[in-house]
């Protein structure tokens, strides 16, 4: 492999980092705020450059022969300790193979667009004089961490990015920290993610330990992939009373550990709770971090570790089912939400559930495919929503919108594209990726795969329903906004709109890179033997779904059902919110309980609070701190001893010292008698 392209890799993450560091130093050590144009030029420039670098690296990668598409740029040994068969060593090294290549492109590309978008979006944010620079500092830092996560060549480095993006999302969610709620959401996101990281760490330990036992101690992906067979039937001994005891297969346990991490990042049940709250951050953040890139890290990780999951069927089943349940659960919540960003947030959760389900079913390619398309259209939707919010002067409640379609026409059109894409209408990217996902689910051997497929379909219907609901409520009907708002309604400036156009374009065409044979047969006329170039590209690194024996007819049928579900949902939305706008209220009234439940997201937050948080705090305070620490140890043991000594003196011995010479003499006589008595015996 050529040196140049390899050394190139390091610059992909480093460029944004340098920008971030520059901003940081400026913020910290220079009192005078940096001019805004310098700020955005640096940030966008660095990300743009790293996008170009990524493209170049991609081209280098493609040049390589199919089997050996891997670029590694090793900087230095980061952490090395231990000897012999337990020698642990993690390199500071970046590796690019097809999967990471895809995600790198998405991250840098979409990232770049969103950076540009942010210029306009943050323009009018005057809450603090340095806020603008601070925002871009965080944004660059995030890009860096995300790229480290993607390009890491070993688990530990991946974990670095993993935590890094968590930190950045914490910072960005709480960007407007002066509002107590934002700060709360920030720390909530970080802590919930930490719970996931807990799993991730354990996974690393578990794999390393057993690889070490097997004589191949390493956490580098390539080595692990080679030696994974060694662990195929390794197992952990656990007490017999434990479920599934007395022996747990290592890989399953490890897979579950990592999946816990994935749940944290990709907002799966039961750890999804942070994502909706994450909408407290500025909209570009929601678009970049909480829709396009970071939240997909979990899915990416599962695909990265696909060699583990393929050997861990039980764990995979858990993954698949968790994904499915998350998908429908979140979708159901989304129905009742009225905050435009909340709706999108829950849709994100549900879409992530889709991807996770696919991954669990072994459809890694499908998962990655949907990940890619989703990145485009969800970013589009968020940015569109952002545009709307800008236009509405930071009003997010769709109940106060409506009828915007001819007031902000451009925004309206791009938003519609996004909606169609996510709803999976034929021709749009979402259609193909969703199709792939459902197909992989349909053909997988996960227990209850039919059910999964069913859930997928229903979710597709619901998705399309609430997306159209959102669309209609926002852009159709008569405008419910205040008068003065209504009068100033207009499309946002260019710098905001242009990224939208680009994204809209990709939301339409992105699907065609992964054109299934069933539809893409015709391309053979043009000499391409397989239309699904995406799958081809990933095939060497991802275990492909075994060629299903389904006839094209079946495929068409499945696709038709999916599309039908989507259409049904759309029509229902149209009926309810355009044709008979008074109905929803009545339905809500008749199903008050259910509606209320949905409105309050099944009270999950409240339940967690009551079951975990409060008890923990109370016990720590009342029992541990006041009881054990202050009461038992200090009060009883320590000061108790002091009291005993003191009391022994001041209530006992003291009175022997009565000051009367003769009592002293008495004690002397006693002593003498005792002594003499002992001596004589």
């Amino acid at each position, binding site marked *: 492999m050529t040196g140049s392209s390899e050394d190139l890799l390091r610059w992909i993450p480093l460029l944004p980092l340098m920008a971030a560091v520059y901003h940081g130093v400026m913020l910290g050590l220079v009192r005078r705020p940096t001019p805004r144009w310098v700020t955005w030029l640096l940030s966008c420039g660095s990300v743009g450059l790293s996008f170009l670098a990524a493209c170049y690296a991609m081209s280098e990668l493609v040049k390589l022969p199919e089997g050996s598409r891997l670029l590694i740029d090793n900087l230095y040994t980061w952490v090395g300790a231990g000897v012999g068969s337990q020698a642990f060593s993690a390199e500071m090294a970046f590796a690019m193979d097809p999967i990471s290549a895809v995600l790198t492109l998405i991250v840098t590309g979409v990232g770049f667009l969103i950076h540009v978008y942010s210029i306009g979006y943050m323009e009018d944010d005057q809450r603090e004089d340095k806020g603008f620079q601070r925002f871009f500092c965080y944004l660059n830092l995030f890009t860096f961490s995300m790229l480290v996560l993607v390009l890491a060549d070993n688990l530990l480095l991946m974990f670095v990015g993993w935590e890094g993006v968590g930190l950045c999302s914490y910072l960005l969610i709480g960007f407007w920290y002066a509002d107590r709620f934002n700060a709360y959401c920030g720390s909530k996101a970080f802590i919930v993610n930490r719970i996931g990281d807990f799993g991730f760490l354990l996974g690393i330990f578990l794999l390393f330990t057993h690889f070490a036992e097997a004589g191949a101690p390493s956490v580098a992906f390539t080595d692990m992939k080679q030696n994974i067979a060694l662990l195929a039937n390794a197992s952990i001994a656990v007490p017999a009373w434990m479920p599934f005891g007395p022996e747990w297969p290592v890989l399953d346990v490890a897979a579950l550990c990592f999946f816990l991490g994935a749940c944290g990042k990709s907002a799966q049940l039961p750890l999804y709770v942070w994502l909706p709250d994450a909408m407290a951050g500025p909209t570009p953040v929601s678009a970049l971090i909480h829709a396009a890139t970071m939240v997909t890290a979990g899915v990416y990780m599962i695909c990265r570790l696909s060699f583990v999951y393929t050997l861990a069927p039980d764990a995979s089943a858990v993954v698949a089912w968790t994904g499915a349940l998350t998908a429908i659960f979140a979708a159901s919540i989304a129905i009742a939400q009225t905050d435009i960003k909340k709706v999108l947030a829950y849709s994100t959760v549900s879409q992530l559930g889709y991807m996770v389900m696919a991954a669990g079913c072994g459809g890694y390619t499908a998962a990655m495919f949907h990940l890619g398309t989703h990145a485009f259209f969800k970013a589009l939707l968020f940015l569109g929503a952002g545009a709307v919010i800008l236009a509405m002067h930071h009003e997010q409640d769709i109940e106060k919108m409506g009828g915007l379609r001819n007031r902000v026409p451009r925004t309206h059109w791009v938003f519609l594209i996004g909606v169609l894409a996510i709803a999976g209408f034929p021709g749009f990217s979402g259609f193909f990726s969703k199709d792939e996902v459902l197909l992989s689910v349909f053909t997988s051997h996960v227990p209850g795969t039919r059910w999964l497929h069913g859930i997928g379909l229903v979710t597709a219907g619901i998705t399309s329903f609430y997306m159209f609901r959102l669309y209609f409520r926002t852009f159709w009907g008569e405008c419910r906004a205040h008068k003065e708002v209504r009068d100033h309604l207009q499309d946002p400036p260019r710098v905001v709109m242009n990224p939208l156009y680009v994204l809209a374009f990709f939301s339409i065409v992105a699907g065609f890179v992964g054109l299934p044979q069933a539809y893409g047969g015709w391309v053979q006329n043009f000499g391409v033997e397989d239309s699904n170039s995406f799958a081809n590209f990933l095939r060497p690194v991802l275990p492909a779904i075994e060629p299903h024996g389904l006839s094209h007819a079946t495929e068409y049928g499945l696709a038709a059902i999916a599309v039908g579900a989507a259409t049904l949902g759309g029509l229902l939305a149209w009926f309810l919110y355009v044709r008979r706008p008074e109905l929803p209220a009545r339905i809500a009234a008749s199903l008050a309980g259910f509606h209320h439940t949905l409105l309050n997201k099944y009270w999950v937050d409240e339940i967690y609070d009551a079951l975990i948080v409060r008890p923990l705090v109370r016990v720590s305070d009342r029992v541990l701190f006041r009881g054990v620490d202050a009461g038992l140890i200090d009060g009883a043991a320590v000061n108790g001893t002091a009291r005993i000594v003191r009391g022994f003196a001041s209530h006992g011995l003291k009175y022997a010292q009565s000051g009367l010479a*003769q*009592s002293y*003499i008495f004690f002397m*006589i006693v002593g003498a*008698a005792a002594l*003499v008595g002992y001596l*004589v015996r």
Partner: protein
Amino acid sequence: MSAPVVLFYAFAALAIISALGMVLNVRNTVASALSLVVTMVSLAGIYVLMEAHIVAAFQIMVYGGAIVVLFLFVVMLLNLRHDEFPPARQRALKLAGAGLALLVLVELLRVLSVDVPEAPPLPEGFGGYAQLGIALYTDYVLLVEVAGLLLLAAIVGALILAKRRID
């Protein structure tokens, strides 16, 4: 039972009685002092019976002649022929002490009665002036010197403590 023995027991009885008298007479200090004299004298008698003539002489001279007189002198000086004190404190303690002392006494007597060997015949002039004098100024000359120092210290001390002029 030979004469010395009889005399001894007489003296012993006298000594004990007068000693008890000294300790038990809580009314009259002078009486206590006088009974102390009696004890001293009777002890001197016993010394004589044991051929310790010099010691006996000193006993009478110093104790009877000097020390007890000093006592009496002080009693007169401070004018405490009769001492009426407020009721005693820590009675129980004292009683216990007394009881214990008696116990010790019994024990002592038991032990001592067995361990004392028989008295050998005495050499010529034992305890006589010559012997004692020579011993004091040859073997024990150091003691004489130091005794002088001791008395000096006592004099100085007594002066310091008791002289009227408080400066």
